[in-house]
């Protein structure tokens, strides 16, 4: 916007400088004033749009790796319950549109967590992902069977 206005004003000033010195009421404008205003507004809105796009692209890509790292490090310091609520807060405060990814990532991490640790205070323990069997996508494992030790009596 600054460059455009600079060009416009330079043009106008050179026009006026070339004109006669006496009693010229004002600098003759090439474009009507409302038009320069509209042009400035459109340039500004375009810049805002581009900035939003850049911000969206920038914040989405490194966020996955960044979040994973911070979660692992925070897990080591605090208990499971606290770290989940902290992560929730972080998502809500730093990124306005996290609602779609919020539960997903927590769910995913809770599965990572619950397989590694105890499920005390873990509210997302019951997901179908945990018990989905590997052979058939529509079949689910029975945990009771899977975890039981085979007791073989020697003959």
């Amino acid at each position, binding site marked *: 916007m600054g460059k455009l206005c600079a060009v416009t004003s330079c043009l106008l000033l050179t026009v006026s400088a070339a004109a006669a010195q006496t009693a010229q009421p004002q*600098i003759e404008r090439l474009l009507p004033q409302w038009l*320069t*205003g509209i042009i*400035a507004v459109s340039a500004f809105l375009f810049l*805002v749009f581009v900035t939003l796009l850049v911000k969206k692209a920038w914040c989405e890509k490194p966020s996955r790796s960044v979040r994973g790292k911070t979660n692992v490090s925070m897990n080591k310091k605090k208990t499971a319950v606290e770290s989940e609520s902290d992560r929730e807060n972080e998502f809500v405060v730093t990124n306005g549109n996290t609602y779609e990814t919020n539960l997903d990532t927590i769910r995913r991490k809770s599965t990572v967590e619950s397989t590694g640790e105890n499920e005390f205070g873990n509210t997302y323990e019951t997901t179908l992902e945990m018990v989905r069997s590997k052979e058939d996508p529509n079949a689910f494992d029975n945990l009771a069977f899977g975890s039981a030790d085979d007791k073989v009596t020697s003959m």
Partner: protein
Amino acid sequence: MNKLLNLLILKADQSSSFTLTTPNLLPNLSSDKGTINNPADIAIIVGYFIMVISVGIWSMFRTNRGTVGGYFLAGRTMTWWPVGASLFASNIGSGHFVGLAGTGAASGIAVGGFEWNALFIVLLLGWLFVPVYLTAGVITMPQYLKKRFGGTRISLYLSVISLFLYIFTKISVDMFSGAVFIQQALGWNIYVAVITLLLITALYTVTGGLAALMYTDTFQTFVIIAGAFVLTGFSFVQVGGYSALLAKYSSATPSNFSSMDPQRYNISPHCYTPRQDAFNLLRDPTTGDLPWPGVIFGIAIVGGWYWCTDQVIVQRCLAARSLTHVKAGCIMCGYLKLLPMFLMVFPGMISRILYPDEVGCVVPELCKMVCGTEVGCSNIAYPKLVVSIMPNGLRGLMLAVMLAALMSSLASIFNSSSTLFTMDIWTRIRPQATERELIIVGRVWVLCIVAISICWIPVVQAAQSGQLFDYIQSVSSYLAPPIASVFLLAVFVKRVNEMGAFWGLIGGLLMGLCRMLPEFWFGTGSCIFPSNCPYLVCGVHYLHFGIILFFCTSVLVLVVSYCTKPIEDQHLHRLVFSLRHSKEERKDLDWEQEERGRRAQREAEERIREKEAKSGICHLVRRFCGGGGSEAPEQDAPEAPEKLPDISEDPVWKYTVDANALIMMTVAVFMWGYYA
């Protein structure tokens, strides 16, 4: 001293000279046009003062003024509308009325760029800087620098230079403009008028603290805008409409423009002809009086200092209830800042069209007769309109408007300078000061600075140049850019450390003084008698110099910081923009000093409680001044450091506020494009 007396005498019989040189006044005005002495005007002025004092008293009972937080930060309970109104009223002083109108009369609308640039800077304040200041939990700006960098020399330097800048730029200019107006409109003795005003202002500042100020500022904003609208309406009617303004301004030349003493000087036509680019905001970079790179970037830098790093403005944002209220207040202030172009600059230009021989006078002897200075009389543009155009009753309203602007700005500056002095300088001298002592010291300092301001009036009168606004802006351009640069880097660049910031500030100050002192020595000169300041010193326009100074200081800060040891992250949580949400423990760089201070304070309070004799009068005085007993402050003191202000925002309101900011920026860009 003789010259001063002559000036005062000339000013005293100006009212009579006015009747001689202004024959085209409306016939139904009262016979002595210099004074306001009819019942309607007096009733309005008295009513205005009663309203202000009653708002001040009402707000006294709303907040607890007994604690430091309650007195200096209004208890952090303000909603968005007092914040926005107070930002506007603290900024707009009588200097704006006189200075904007005068410079508008002399050189056109580009001076309005100073106001319209602030629309964007005030958004920077709300979105980028205040979140950091809020989570840092500081009351004053030097305190923030102390926490951010450690050490004491930076905060001491900033306190001293801020107080210096307040006296030299804000207080003196506002009082001078107020005095000009009072002289023109009332014909009173300057000292009587100014002392009365200052005492009334000091009264509600001293007793009420920031809360009283912000609520009275809201009322003053209404008065300012209403009155200014009325005057603008009348002046447009008088000149014949907006298109008439456009057409007639370029032919507003005085009738006397030939030199009275051709041996001494000659008057070239460009000294009294209105500028050709008068209706352009953006002017030629080399020949314009306000070149467009300077207007866009230079004013942004000085504005960055004024809005984002200066105690007066930031203190109002810190008093808000939550971050959303801060942002909404900033947006409201931005919208209000659209108005001065139409309420002050255009009427100034209309004044030149209507009274070209007074406002646009060019012959030095004539100018001296009209307004007392040889340089030019554009400063009287606004008061002239008030005295000449406004009918009875409304002149009283306009006087109330000027008083509102003057008192609100002065009160804000008094309060903030007392905050700075109390929290930064006094606590260093006496770390064991109790809360009660701090509040008393704050109040006494206000009275001291009132006395200093009164003593400063003759100096400003003697040094008056034709263009008042230019004077403030040029002094700011020489001294403020280093501070803006250091704050910007402190908030956004973690690598900057104490050595870098300190040497950057000192280097910037030296550079600024290298330009400022010679320019004041040689004098700014006028169109007829140009100053003989060498091109090397004064050739660069002051706004361009501000840009250069900003970049040089930034480079210096970064170079010195990268060559010395960095500050670790553990000291920087919630002190920089990138770490503003972090919830980790912060190890304060100044914790030793604070710990010592707190221990000394606790011991002092215990000693006071032991030997306190509760007499009746003592108790009464304490109730009036708002100290609610010695129990309340102690409960607050240990709490205050632990309770961190919350900068989380409700997402719905966050989006509303962001959308509003975008709309405001669009409007601002359209106005800039329209008048470019």
